[in-house]
């Protein structure tokens, strides 16, 4: 037992003697944080501006033509904006993350967010299908541009789903790796 303790102490000594002298520059980190905060603020202002313009345009259009087609288009815009904001919010909260939690809770929340991202992809696809339906009912024809945009959006949604699924599988394996050989209730 003592020999093992000595051995372990030797390993600890070896580990802690690693030449890890290249420390990060605190001023550089602060500069990076400031720069990223500035970029995020600019993005937030842009996103808010686009949202306000889109909502204002849909309301003006609805007041100009207060029939069922106008209401349908306005509803479509609002649902699309809601889905887009949900993605933005999820992305931001994933980046911020509950980093000060213990690993178990952190991984559990990361899994939950990956599942939410997958659910959001389905919502996006539902919104796209709704837009197609509205387009078909209101305009009775399909633009090549709209077709291209929809294809792009579906591709993007598929890629998001794929990424979220990979993350989810990795996280599940990560947790399983810890629990499969541990006695229950430990």
């Amino acid at each position, binding site marked *: 037992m003592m*020999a093992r303790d000595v051995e372990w102490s030797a390993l600890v000594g070896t*580990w802690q003697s690693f030449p890890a002298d290249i420390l990060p520059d605190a001023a550089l980190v602060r500069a990076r944080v400031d720069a990223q905060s500035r970029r995020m603020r600019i993005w937030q202002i842009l996103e808010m501006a686009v949202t306000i313009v889109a909502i204002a345009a849909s309301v003006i259009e609805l007041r100009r033509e207060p029939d069922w087609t106008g209401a349908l288009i306005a509803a479509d815009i609002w649902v699309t904006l809601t889905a887009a904001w949900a993605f933005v919010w999820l992305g931001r909260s994933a980046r911020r993350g509950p980093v000060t939690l213990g690993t178990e809770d952190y991984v559990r929340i990361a899994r939950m967010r990956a599942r939410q991202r997958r659910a959001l992809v389905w919502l996006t696809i539902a919104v796209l299908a709704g837009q197609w339906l509205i387009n078909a009912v209101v305009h009775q024809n399909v633009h090549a541009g709209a077709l291209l945009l929809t294809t792009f959006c579906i591709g993007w949604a598929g890629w998001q789903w794929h990424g979220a699924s990979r993350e989810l599988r990795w996280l599940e394996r990560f947790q399983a790796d810890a629990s499969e*050989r*541990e006695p229950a209730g430990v």
Partner: protein
Amino acid sequence: VPEPPEAGFERLVADHGRALRRLVAAYEFDASEQDDLMQEIMFAIWRAFPSFRGDCSERTFVFRIAHNAAISHRRRAMTRQRVLELDLASDRIDPRPGPDEDLLLATLQRSLLDAVRSLSPMLRQTIVLSLEGLANAEIGDVLGVASGTVAVRLNRARAELTRLLDLPRKGSQ
């Protein structure tokens, strides 16, 4: 008088920077990835530092953030890779040392680092914290598990290390 965030952050870097460098080396093989992860950890600590209320030790706080940032970094790296083996063993990338690392690490340190890197992420986390001198209860605080669980993982991790480093096993002396 409360410490200004800038001063607190610089003190954290001075106190725990070397331990974090070792932690980063245990997670990432490539030097540029290591730098990237180190920056991410520092970034996360800087952002989280104002919320630190002293409900755990400063070391626990720093290691929690560092491990969570490292998990996110690995997760993103795995997602970026076009061919993804789901087996976590694929996380054990080429363990051969890079040219810079060769200059820095002596043989025994190299072997230990390689052995730590070849453990599964969960065992790696536990052993790195233990090698940094954290007690089981403190490791449990960082990982969010009970001390008993830490003890089980440490036993497994130490047995793996013993095998990988070809150290004499219990009872074989």
